[in-house]
């Protein structure tokens, strides 16, 4: 009857994930400053919970590891011993193994391998005994009493509370008996979470997209479009609003806060700092910012890489910092924020910045830049993102795993985002990853040029105007046509020429409507034949041969059921 079902495994994995995260957070906090009693108690509780619940599932190795950690922490909880650095390192190591354990449980419902865990348990036990033996602990360690009582109780008839002969006055023991509760807990409200298969949410989003199309097919049907149907129009409008809110809410279902990801980064920075012998502090800003779950999973590796780079190459060692008059402790700020319809994740360090001369020399060495060329500052920074700039050897030695800045860029671009590197020599660098908030629906301005429909992300469009006589300038050097907009000149990009069509039929610019869009490298002007209007577009990825279409972020399904090319504005310059 003690059979363990799927539900218990799933519940365990979910609960253990949360608890382990809290434990890690507590440990990393203790590394920065000495913990108070409540923090130690919280840490103890977490380990205690892991021990207790794993025993239910007969996860002996997992439970054993949690148990020895709990013993170690009990020294701090019950005997006021300081939580020292070797202790923290041991406990963090245990956290990693426990996390692997949860992964294993999730995948194969199996316990950690006892042989693999044992050496770590031994080391923790040795650390426990060494500290317990110290004069700071006079009384017998509580876990020994524990074990005796446990045996007595489990073997006793359970029905009655076993009579335990014990001296001591009742009043004191009653006071002692107050259960330990997580303090300040009265106000602590619990959010209930549902664990839902991501595929189900995706399927639902697809359906919502189709629903939008079907809805438009009815409300904009030619049979009703011509008639004078006032009641119908308002009912149709209401229906469209509802469908739209369903789509928006469904997108929000996939949004999760970046906090857990950012917290893991504390660990990454700590480990990198230890390895390089530098002193680095990671400050986290905007951890409540929500992003699409898919995005969160995909940017983890790139973020790890960027942060390790910042520690390895950015932050100087303490001597050098002292010489430069900088504080001994290097500082990295990891931030997340929403800007318009986009999420911006930034990593800023106060290190030495990118050494242009070295990058250029390396780019030449790797054959990424001809010896004769004199690249601009922006171009030099761009070399960092080229495949082959970092060699495998360097990646392994310095940054731990096979991810280079080129992979960072590719990953972010696959999420329809962009990476931007800014750096001031001597003062630090900043890597900014900008990605759309949701991967499924885009608020877009739909335009027609020639026979094609295009969807432009609405946040990129900053002006729509008509070209008047005298506002056009032709660049005498390369023959490019520029449009004067107030005091700047904006290049005109014909979308049909962009795909290699030479035909200039109907390409008279004067009097035509242009849409001005903002891109990473300045504005561009897109002449259009028709403005179809603003609408929410369901974005589908382009696969296979279609994925090579230039400047396309995907294909957008319009309300009419037509398909538009969703433009990636930042690529319109290429």
């Amino acid at each position, binding site marked *: *009857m*003690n059979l*363990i*079902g799927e*539900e*218990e495994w799933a*519940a*365990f994995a*979910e*609960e253990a994930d949360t608890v382990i995260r809290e434990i890690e957070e507590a440990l990393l906090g203790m590394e920065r400053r000495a913990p108070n009693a409540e923090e130690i108690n919280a840490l103890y*509780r977490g380990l*205690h*919970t892991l*021990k*207790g*619940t794993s*025993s*239910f*599932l*007969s996860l002996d190795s997992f439970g054993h590891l949690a148990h020895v950690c709990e013993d170690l922490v009990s020294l701090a909880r019950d005997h006021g011993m300081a939580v020292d650095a070797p202790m923290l390192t041991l406990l963090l190591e245990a956290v990693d193994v426990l996390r692997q354990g949860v992964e294993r449980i999730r995948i194969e419902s199996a316990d950690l391998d006892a042989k693999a865990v044992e050496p770590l348990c031994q080391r923790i036990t040795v650390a426990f005994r060494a500290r317990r033996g110290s004069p700071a602990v006079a009384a017998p360690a*509580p876990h020994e*009493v*524990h074990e005796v*009582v*446990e045996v007595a*109780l*489990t073997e006793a008839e*359970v*029905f*009655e*509370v*076993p009579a*335990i002969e*014990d001296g*001591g006055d*009742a009043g004191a*023991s*009653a006071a*002692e*008996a*107050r*259960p*330990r*509760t*997580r303090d300040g*807990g*009265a106000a*602590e409200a*619990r959010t209930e979470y549902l664990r839902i298969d991501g595929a189900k949410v995706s399927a639902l989003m697809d359906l919502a997209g189709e629903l939008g199309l079907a809805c438009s097919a009815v409300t904009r049907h030619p049979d009703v479009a011509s008639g004078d149907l006032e009641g119908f129009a308002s009912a149709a409008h209401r229906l469209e609003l509802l469908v739209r809110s369903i789509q928006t809410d469904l997108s929000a279902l996939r949004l999760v806060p970046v906090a857990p990801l950012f917290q893991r980064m504390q660990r990454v920075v700590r480990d990198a700092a230890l390895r390089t012998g530098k002193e680095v502090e990671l400050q986290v800003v905007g951890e409540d910012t929500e992003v699409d779950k898919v995005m969160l999973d995909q940017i983890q590796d790139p973020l790890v890489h960027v942060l390790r780079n910042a520690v390895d190459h950015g932050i100087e060692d303490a001597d050098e910092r002292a010489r430069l008059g900088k504080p001994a402790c290097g500082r990295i700020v990891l931030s997340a924020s929403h800007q318009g319809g986009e999420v911006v994740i930034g990593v800023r360090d106060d290190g030495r910045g990118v050494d242009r001369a070295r990058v250029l020399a390396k780019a030449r060495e790797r054959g990424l830049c001809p010896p004769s060329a004199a690249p601009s500052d922006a171009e030099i920074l761009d070399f960092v993102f080229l495949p082959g700039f970092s060699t495998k050897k360097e990646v392994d030695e310095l940054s731990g795993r096979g991810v280079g800045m080129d992979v960072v860029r590719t990953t972010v671009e696959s999420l329809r985002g962009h990476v931007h590197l800014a750096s001031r020599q001597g003062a630090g660098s900043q890597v900014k990853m900008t990605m759309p908030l949701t991967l499924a629906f885009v608020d877009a301005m739909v335009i027609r040029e020639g026979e094609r429909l295009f969807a432009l992300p609405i946040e990129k469009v900053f002006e729509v105007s008509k070209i008047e006589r005298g506002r056009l300038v032709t660049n005498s050097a390369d023959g490019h046509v520029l449009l004067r907009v107030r005091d700047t000149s904006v290049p005109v990009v014909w979308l049909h020429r962009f795909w290699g069509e030479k035909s200039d039929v109907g390409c008279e610019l004067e009097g035509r409507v242009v849409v001005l869009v903002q891109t990473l490298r300045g504005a561009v002007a897109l002449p259009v034949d028709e403005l179809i209007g603003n609408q929410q577009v369901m974005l589908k990825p382009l696969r296979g041969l279609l994925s090579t279409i230039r400047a396309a972020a995907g294909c957008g399904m319009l309300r009419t059921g037509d398909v538009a090319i969703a433009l990636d504005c930042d690529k319109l310059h290429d």
Partner: protein
Amino acid sequence: MDPKILVVDDSMVVRTHLKRTLVAAGFEVIEAVDGVQALEKLTEEPNVILVVSDVNMPRMGGLELLERMRQVEALREMPVLMLTTEAQIELVKRAKELGAKGWMIKPLKAELLVATVRKLMAAKAA
């Protein structure tokens, strides 16, 4: 009017497991995540006839729950089983003073829990 068992534990794993075990043995089970919620459930559900509770929980632990139950006329006689990983003598003594019917150490064999629950139910019915 089926009699119900209230399982109080902050761990979802424990709740899930106890529920499965007790439901398989033919009982109806409702759950609470801590003492505060347990008291709410006890007020809402007049058919609860037995409480199986953890000791160490956020907001309100098992012993405080027991204490509060003893102050309420309708709940004074309700049997409560403590099911916990704690084994400090003082805690066990305190639970006994407050009239807990048993103190069981997690994890325990499902058969033992079911047998104990059956025995308690029978005692109450008699």
